[in-house]
């Protein structure tokens, strides 16, 4: 198939001759349809202007609805009219044009939008004294006190010599063309009418406007012909000018909007193109597509990260075209017989729907040169997307796995790049329609190629939540299995791997089986207690030092800093030494193993896990009371004027800062108390492993929530000098300004509940505000940077070949291929 490519677009102004020559119809009447409902010849719905209804052929080109592009008509205006969109240009041009000789009076080249402020007094060519031109919005021009009508302006512009135009960078045509004499009537395909259910026709806004224009034009012409008095003509001329102006732009300042019968403002041509709902952004930059599907997502840790579970309903609806060749003809025939093909296309491009009745016949006829639209099957490559698509990993390619039920299934490990969860999120799926697209997707877009984030050079795909908890528990010291137990575990995780011939197998050894050979890495984990003693590394008593030698986990308990998304150090290392497929298998297997172990062990939390012994609770209580007392002390000092004032702050804000830090210290002390004394339970496991939650969350549940803040300050808003009417005016104490002294388990007092709620509401407001702000920022970034690319010489250039950077990113290293933005060369010279 040969496709011609548009190489360039030239912009310019249409001349009356061109308008006439590209038109097929001269419009003479404002009537649309005759009594029988047929379009009138010479009206704005003339059938020669193109077809907008199915089943009719165009009277000009004989094409049907899809084929006929539409044809222009033209209208001869009785009197010339100013093109409203060019008023500023006309004004500026009038100011620099000599009123007598028509020369452009500027000495140096200027931009027509930016001419010298002071009008030139005397023409340097003919010496004529110039008069002051004024422009009264929307479309009237005066020379001194006298009005300049479009006819006069046009005459003036006609005198401008061609050579002078480049002086004001006017190269798009002749300036007199800015005054319309011949008015183009757009094809009906541009403004199709809709037939309502009642059989009534509803015309497009532009058609309504065109009818007005033609009608006024007719009556102006008739009035001129009968020699009507001047004031009638000026009124009609003005009216024609109004209609033509609002046809182009119906949001002009100072011009009343043209309205539909219902009172809705009509859409002018500018409104059609402009802004988010306009043609460019809504229809040209973003398009609706076929072969796509959308449904709710749900997790399935047993499928690969590279796969997506597609419901049968979807798989039977979406199709992928496949050409019949000698290699696949047998398979395709089987597919047709099994009802896995929806359509076949003959070599002459005719499409035939495959039905129960004709499938045998089709199989008989089919041969090389045909192609079929085959239903989705396992292993097909599709694009999977979740909005908002903030970065490129929001759209990735997955392999299809057809599954029962009605949701898309995905491995929880791929949630982070999509930022997806399963609380009702929906995602989109696109079936790729050409071999080229499929190849590109499989080589660039598959999940396994996008594990490392281009943003920070770390993993985006990694274990999440329970998967981390499971692996953490499994690799803890003292987890030992018999050979049978180990086999049982691997079996339930669906991992097919040779077990070492040993009686007892530790959890670490089990995980080591999955790590590819050649992996060498040592690091401190997330739950490192930061002990005061010098770090003993491998000999850490908390087992917080991970050491992997040649793919064998020697010491350390794996947590989110080892295998988690965003943080997992091991993932980068595996990617460095092993293939992408091996890394994919590692994440798949490890995730399944984690969950399998968790299921076998059992994992559950309870309110009782948050129980603290009586004396600890009392200690915490005392800590809180001490904090409250300290706050009162601060207030007292403040009242006496003895408060230590922070430089650059008023006494009031110093007090607030002091109070806030006092209360923060309270929470900190309590949380330390909780951390030291809470019973070891699965809540602690989650926090320690980095799966979910932290010590702060535990503290807030078990003991004390702390001070709630709004805009970084204690809660201040409410009534005059107080937050709620239950407090005394001027009460600055902790409990009157948002301090929550209890934990969620014990329950909050009504005040505390209210403080907590205020904080929650602020979060919601902040979120919605932020989404809008950052969305607009992204749009601006995208438009500024869209054309930059890296060339072969590693320079970054824009689409005009201007060099922006001599070496991309200053060192040419692609963060996607780096280790957290570093080359990490030290890892490559091991063993040299």
């Amino acid at each position, binding site marked *: 198939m040969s496709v011609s490519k548009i190489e360039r677009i030239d912009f310019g102004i249409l001349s009356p001759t061109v308008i006439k020559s590209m038109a097929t119809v001269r419009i003479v009447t404002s009537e649309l349809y005759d009594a029988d409902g047929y379009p009138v010849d010479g009206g704005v719905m003339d059938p020669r202007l193109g077809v907008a209804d199915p089943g009719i052929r165009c009277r000009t080109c004989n094409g049907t609805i899809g084929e006929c592009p539409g044809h222009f008509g033209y209208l001869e205006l009785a009197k010339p009219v100013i093109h409203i969109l060019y008023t500023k240009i006309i004004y500026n041009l009038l100011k620099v044009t000599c009123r007598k000789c028509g020369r452009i009076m500027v000495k140096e080249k200027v931009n027509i939008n930016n001419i010298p402020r002071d009008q030139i007094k005397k023409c340097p060519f003919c010496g004529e004294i110039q008069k002051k031109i004024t422009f009264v919005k929307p479309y009237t021009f005066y020379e001194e006190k006298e009005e300049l009508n479009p006819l006069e302006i046009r005459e003036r512009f006609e005198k401008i010599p061609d050579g002078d135009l480049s002086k004001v960078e006017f190269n*798009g045509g002749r300036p007199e063309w800015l005054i319309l004499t011949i008015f183009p009537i757009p094809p009906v395909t541009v403004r199709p009418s809709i037939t309502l259910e009642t059989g009534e026709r509803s015309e497009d806004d532009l058609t309504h406007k065109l009818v007005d224009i033609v009608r006024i034009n007719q009556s102006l012409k008739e009035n001129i012909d009968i020699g009507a008095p001047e004031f009638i003509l000026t009124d009609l001329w003005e009216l024609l000018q109004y209609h033509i102006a609002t046809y182009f732009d119906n949001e002009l300042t100072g011009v009343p909007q043209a309205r539909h019968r219902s009172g809705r403002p009509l859409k002018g041509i500018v409104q059609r193109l402009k802004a988010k709902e306009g043609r460019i952004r809504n229809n040209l930059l973003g398009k609706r597509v076929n072969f796509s599907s959308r449904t709710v997502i749900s997790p399935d840790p047993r499928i690969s990260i590279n796969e997506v579970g597609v419901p049968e309903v979807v798989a039977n609806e979406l199709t992928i075209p496949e050409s019949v060749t000698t290699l696949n003809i047998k398979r395709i025939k089987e597919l047709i017989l099994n009802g896995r093909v929806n359509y076949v296309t003959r070599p002459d491009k005719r499409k035939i729907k495959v039905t129960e009745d004709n499938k045998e016949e089709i199989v008989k006829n089919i041969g090389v040169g045909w192609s079929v639209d085959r239903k989705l099957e396992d292993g097909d490559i599709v694009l999977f997307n979740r909005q908002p698509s903030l970065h490129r990993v929001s759209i990735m390619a997955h392999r299809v796995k057809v599954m029962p039920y009605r949701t898309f299934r995905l491995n929880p490990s791929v949630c982070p790049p999509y930022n997806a969860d399963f609380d009702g999120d929906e995602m989109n799926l696109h079936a790729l329609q050409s071999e080229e697209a499929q190849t590109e997707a499989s080589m660039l877009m598959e999940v396994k190629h996008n594990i490392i984030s281009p*943003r920070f050079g770390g993993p985006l795909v990694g274990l999440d939540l329970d998967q981390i908890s499971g692996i953490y528990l499994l690799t803890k010291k003292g987890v030992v299995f018999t050979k049978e137990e180990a086999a049982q575990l691997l079996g339930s995780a669906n991992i097919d791997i040779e077990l070492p011939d040993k009686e007892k197998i530790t959890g670490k050894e089990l995980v080591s089986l999955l790590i590819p050979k050649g992996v060498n890495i040592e690091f401190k984990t997330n739950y490192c207690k930061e002990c005061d003693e010098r770090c003993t590394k491998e000999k850490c008593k908390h087992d917080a030092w991970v050491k992997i030698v040649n793919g064998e986990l020697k010491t350390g308990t794996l947590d989110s800093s080892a295998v988690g998304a965003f943080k997992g150090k091991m993932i980068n290392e595996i990617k460095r030494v092993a293939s992408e497929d091996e890394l994919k298998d590692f994440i798949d297997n490890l995730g399944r193993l984690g969950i399998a172990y968790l299921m076998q062990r059992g994992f559950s939390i309870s309110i009782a896990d948050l129980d603290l012994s009586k004396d600890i609770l009392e200690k915490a209580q005392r800590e809180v009371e001490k904090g409250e007392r300290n706050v009162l002390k601060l207030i007292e000092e403040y009242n006496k004027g003895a408060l230590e004032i922070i430089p650059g702050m008023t006494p009031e804000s110093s007090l607030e800062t002091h109070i806030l830090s006092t209360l923060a210290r309270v929470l900190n002390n309590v949380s330390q108390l909780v951390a030291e004394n809470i019973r070891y339970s699965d809540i602690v496991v989650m926090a320690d492993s980095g799966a979910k939650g932290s010590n702060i969350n535990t503290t807030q549940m078990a003991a004390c929530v702390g001070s709630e803040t709004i805009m970084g300050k204690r809660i201040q808003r409410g009534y005059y000098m107080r937050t709620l009417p239950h407090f005394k005016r001027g009460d600055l104490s902790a409990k009157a300004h948002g301090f929550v002294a209890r934990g969620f388990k014990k329950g909050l007092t009504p005040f505390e509940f209210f403080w907590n709620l205020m904080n929650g509401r602020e979060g919601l407001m902040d979120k919605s505000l932020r989404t809008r702000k950052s969305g607009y920022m992204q749009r601006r970034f995208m438009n500024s940077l869209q054309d930059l*690319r890296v060339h072969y010489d590693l320079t*970054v250039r824009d689409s005009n070949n201007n060099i922006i950077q001599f070496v991309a990113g200053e060192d040419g290293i692609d963060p996607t291929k780096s280790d957290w933005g570093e080359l990490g060369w030290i890892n490559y010279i091991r063993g*040299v």
Partner: protein
Amino acid sequence: MELPLKIVKEVEEYIKNNKIDKKRAEKIWERVREAYSNAVYDPEEPIGVVTAQSLSEPATQMTMRTYHFAGTAGIQVTLGLPRLIEIFDAKKEPETPSMTIYLKKDYQTKEKAMRIAEDIKEIKLKDLVISTTIDLINMTITCKLDMNKLRRYNIKPEELAKKIKLKNLEITTKEDRLIAVSTKEDVINLHKLKFRMLESHIKGVKGVTHVILSKNEKGEWVITTLGSNLKKVFDIEGVDATRTYTNNIFEVYEVLGIEAARNVIIREAMKTIEEQGLGVDVRYVSLLADLMTVTGKIRGIGRYGIAGNKDSVLARAAFEETKKHIINASVKGAKDPLKGPIENIILNQVIPLGTGAFKLVGRIGKKGK
């Protein structure tokens, strides 16, 4: 591909420190070079799009209006998303301009540093006044001066009168009173005049409203300010101009030039992003900073900056102000060579980036040459 200087230096140091012989060193170099060539950008990588995504994706996670105390000092600076937008918009004046002033070695005592700090802080008349009264009958404004403060700043009341330069105002002093008589019989403007008088600059560096003296981690005296005026501060004796820093990008551009401004953009943006605990590779920030400064002037992103000055008419029209761009293009007779991605998406053509950038076409099915 030649190795970047930073890596060359690292490797050289490694070889020197570990006393590696020549033969092994050669092998190491080979390995490093191989690792580097594998990590380099692929040609035709759409780095701009990735940059835009990498910078704005974390922005959705940023907090909006959280003020934070810069260090132990009490200076509040804008942070988070508003600050990031401010930087990339190239706003002429940041919401909270702030300087970090380092001092020369000879001035590293508390007294000397304090004196410099006091010299820098701007003193306005209102800072020295206890109360002000307006006498509408005699058209006079009387200010009661805080003599303690005057003594502390070493200003004589007579000098004060000379410092205030306002039209239509005759100023005299009488003991601890500053009396200003309006020469114009204009009651309405007397109030305005009062405010303008109180705002008069007396001493210090214009624009610096707060100064805070503190010791940094190295035990060095450092002055942090709210308000920025780099040029004036450089002239003050004892200030180490080589290290003194401001977060006002335009000021750096005017005083130190475009290269310095570029570095400030990178530094400020990275600081803002990292403070929120988000990770973005420096390479992206540096690319955007380069794009903003490549013309020799600072251009913001957006309508009046980079996006509004693209060469392509269609790209500009697709962004904002569609009408304006299309009308101007038609008058100028502009030509759009359709070299960028947006233009080609509009026309439903393959974009000239990534795999779409290649023009090589294979001849399939034809045998022979």
